[in-house]
């Protein structure tokens, strides 16, 4: 590893950012173990790894939000400033964090120039100039966002753009983008890449984190792979095939990653369990227009689309979390009252929500309690008193089927690992022995073996005659499906009836490029 003399002035420092043997633990979790990584000026360095691999943790070290337990961070060839000196960090490195760093009550202009008053005199803010400059920035980006608008009123994508605009306008030599494109549409992604290329040509070093591997091949020169907090692979993008990259990330032989997704074939289907007609929902997370959909017993319908395409909204509307503007939802042929989760779930629906932290569990309560939250009335006697015996039995059963790893059944879910938390959320839905299961990203953040277990559980439910509606942006999940429905911008645009499905075609459909029926 190259080192620079601290005495000799680094006329053109060879790195904009450098991590040297850094380690970081949170309690017993070793988020980073002895990781070394450099970002050169003029390069885009990709950082990939599975969920929880430690990528964002490395970002917090590079941006001075955390201090490494061991090892050192260097910026622009110099030792990193002390954590308290935020100003020094900000001058050296700009970042789009994975977590939203938008301040909702402030305007777009202020968010762009957060804590960087467009200099009037001293600490006094020149509003006119700040607005004008923010407006100009937005124009440059080709986004018609009113800079005087409150950030609270922005869509998720617009917020992301605000954050990107903020990071890019700082003019630091080191830029970190942690999953910047997760909420972006294609056009916006292209514009982002265009900017990144230009910055790179201007000598800026970029650390780019994304789960979309194709993006990495598009704009990055080097790639590093983290697995369980360790750096397992690093090299030039051109030298590493996608298969090798995935292998490094997963750690074992690459999964059957053929060009095709295998699918289940089911010959005998039951009657229609879930029927959605002309569903129209307005939602910030992705509106839905005139969606028709039906799921029969024993069928698993995969609802596929980009983030914001409305797939998750359909799921939320089906279980009654959102009130649709129009349309009907029927279970077993009779309509369910809209907008009441309780009423819907009583009709035999199980639900795995998208975000486990937001809707999945009560963190302070035990595994057993969380597993039985959807069946409280079933494990209670006629006076409403809960039978501990029945609760334990159900919880034990689910814990076993889903291979939940916990010290005991009453361990608080907050202290489980992310993957096990996710299993609790799936278990909660399955515990109600539903006849219709609505699952959104059910395997998010779980390891390979656990993923198998979860998908097996879904598959078993399907085989037992449950009608499954599976919303997922992870193609691996789709192999338990019998049929796929693709949504683009809130509308159903394509259907794939029989597997195996061609990955390429599916991606094209999801991206809205061509319609293959």
């Amino acid at each position, binding site marked *: 590893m190259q080192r620079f003399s601290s005495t000799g002035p680094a006329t053109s420092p060879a790195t904009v950012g450098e991590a040297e043997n850094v380690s970081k633990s949170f309690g017993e979790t070793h988020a980073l173990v002895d990781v070394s990584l450099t970002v050169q000026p003029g390069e885009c360095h990709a950082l990939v790894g599975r969920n929880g691999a430690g990528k964002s943790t490395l970002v917090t070290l590079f941006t001075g939000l955390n201090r490494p337990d061991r090892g050192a961070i260097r910026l622009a060839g110099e030792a990193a400033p002390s954590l308290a000196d935020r100003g020094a960090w900000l001058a050296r490195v700009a970042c789009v964090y994975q977590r939203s760093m938008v301040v909702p009550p402030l305007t777009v202009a202020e968010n762009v120039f957060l804590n960087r008053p467009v200099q009037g005199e001293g600490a006094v803010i020149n509003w006119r100039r700040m607005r004008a400059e923010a407006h100009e920035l937005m124009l440059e980006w080709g986004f018609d966002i009113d800079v005087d608008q409150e950030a609270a009123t922005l869509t998720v994508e617009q917020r992301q753009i605000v954050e990107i605009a903020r990071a890019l306008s700082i003019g630091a030599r080191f830029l970190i983008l942690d999953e910047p494109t997760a909420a972006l549409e294609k056009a916006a992604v292209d514009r982002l890449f265009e900017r990144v290329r230009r910055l790179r040509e201007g000598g800026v070093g970029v650390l780019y984190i994304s789960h979309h591997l194709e993006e990495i091949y598009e704009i990055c020169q080097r790639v590093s792979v983290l697995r369980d907090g360790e750096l397992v692979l690093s090299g030039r993008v051109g030298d590493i095939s996608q298969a090798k990259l995935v292998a490094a990330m997963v750690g074992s032989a690459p999964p059957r990653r053929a060009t095709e997704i295998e699918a289940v074939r089911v010959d005998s289907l039951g009657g229609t369990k879930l029927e959605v007609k002309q569903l129209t929902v307005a939602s910030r997370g992705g509106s839905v227009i005139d969606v028709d959909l039906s799921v029969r017993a024993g069928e698993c319908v995969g609802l596929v689309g980009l983030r914001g395409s409305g797939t998750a909204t359909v799921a939320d509307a089906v*279980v009654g*979390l959102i009130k649709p503007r129009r349309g009907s939802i029927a279970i077993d042929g009779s309509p369910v009252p809209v907008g009441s*989760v*309780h009423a*819907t*779930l*009583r009709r035999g629906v199980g*639900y795995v*929500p998208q975000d486990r932290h*937001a*809707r*999945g*569990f*009560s*963190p*302070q*309560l035990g595994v057993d*309690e*969380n597993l039985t*939250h*959807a069946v*409280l*009335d079933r*494990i*209670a006697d006629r006076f*409403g*008193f*809960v039978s*501990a015996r029945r609760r*334990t039995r159900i919880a*034990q059963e689910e*814990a076993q089927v889903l291979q939940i790893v*916990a*010290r*005991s*059944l*009453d*361990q608080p879910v907050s202290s489980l690992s992310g993957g096990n938390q996710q299993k609790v959320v799936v278990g*909660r839905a399955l515990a*109600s022995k539903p006849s219709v299961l609505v699952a959104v990203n059910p395997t998010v953040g779980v390891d390979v073996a656990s993923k198998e277990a979860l998908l097996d559980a879904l598959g078993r439910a399907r085989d037992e005659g449950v009608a499954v509606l599976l919303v997922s942006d992870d193609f691996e999940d789709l192999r338990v499906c019998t049929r796929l429905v693709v949504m683009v911008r809130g509308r159903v645009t394509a259907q794939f009836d029989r597997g195996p499905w061609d990955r390429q075609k599916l991606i094209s459909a999801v991206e809205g490029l061509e319609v293959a029926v």
Partner: protein
Amino acid sequence: MARRDFRFVVLNWFRELTLVPVIVVMMFAGSLVNPVFFTTSNLINVAEGGAALGMVVVAESLILLTGKFDISLQGTFGLAPLLGAWLIAPKASQGLGTEWNPWLGLLVVLLVGLAVGTFNGLLVIKANFNAFIFTLAMSILLTGLQLGWLGGQTVYNLPEAYIYLGAESWFGVPVAIWLTIAAFAAAALFLRYHRIGRAMYAIGGNLEAARAAGIQVDRIRIGVFIVASLLAAIGGLMQAGRVTAVTAGQGSNLIFGVFAAAVIGGISLEGGRGRVVGALTGVILLALVTNILTLSDVSSTWIDAVDGAIILIALGLAKLIGTERA
């Protein structure tokens, strides 16, 4: 996998019962301060002093557990028994003169609790008013009504049935104490073993998760507001019975003690955490402190300051032992 982790059980009890050592120390201090302290009659006195407060602490704890807040319980505590008393007391002792049957008066007390609780519940849960400021305004309104209704007068000469809860004893122990113990026990059992009790913890821990699990979160939360107001009304009745009168000032500033007892007893202001047994220790501690100050020679004007200091110390202690991110 062990069904129940012994360590967890012990830890949990330990966290709920942070105050027990403090209470033991206070008891010891009490017996040093004055030999009278450890007499049955004084300890009953302590318990009786904490009884009405305890009812409202149970009420507030239920609301806190579901992640909400109700300041106006103190208003209900005053207004409900006042209206009931007004309808049954003779004109000479500030009643309306209708001299209703005392049982009707008791019904009125409960109805006031019901009405206020429903109103608060609907507006805080359904109309989504901020619980702090809304129930604060309600508290001002209810206390104002209590003052205005009788022009600041006290209603007295109340019939026996009406003051029964506060005035009578069973087996030498005042009914109010039995009733408060019963309320704590019922709340504890309900919260621990009833599906709605468990649902309340789920709601307080993560509202959206509870909703997504099909728990009727709004109905339960409104119900909790109603039950709490009813308990506050009953607490007010106990207090009225104890002094055999309803004063225009009954309940004012009560809520400070209520929050203090609940929070130092480990009920989290953020919802979902804590147990009523902890809240009970909070009530006991406050009642003990008051009693010991009474028995000691602390100059009377300093009592409030000592009280504030002790709450602060208890908060600090609770934080150290980690019951609460208080």
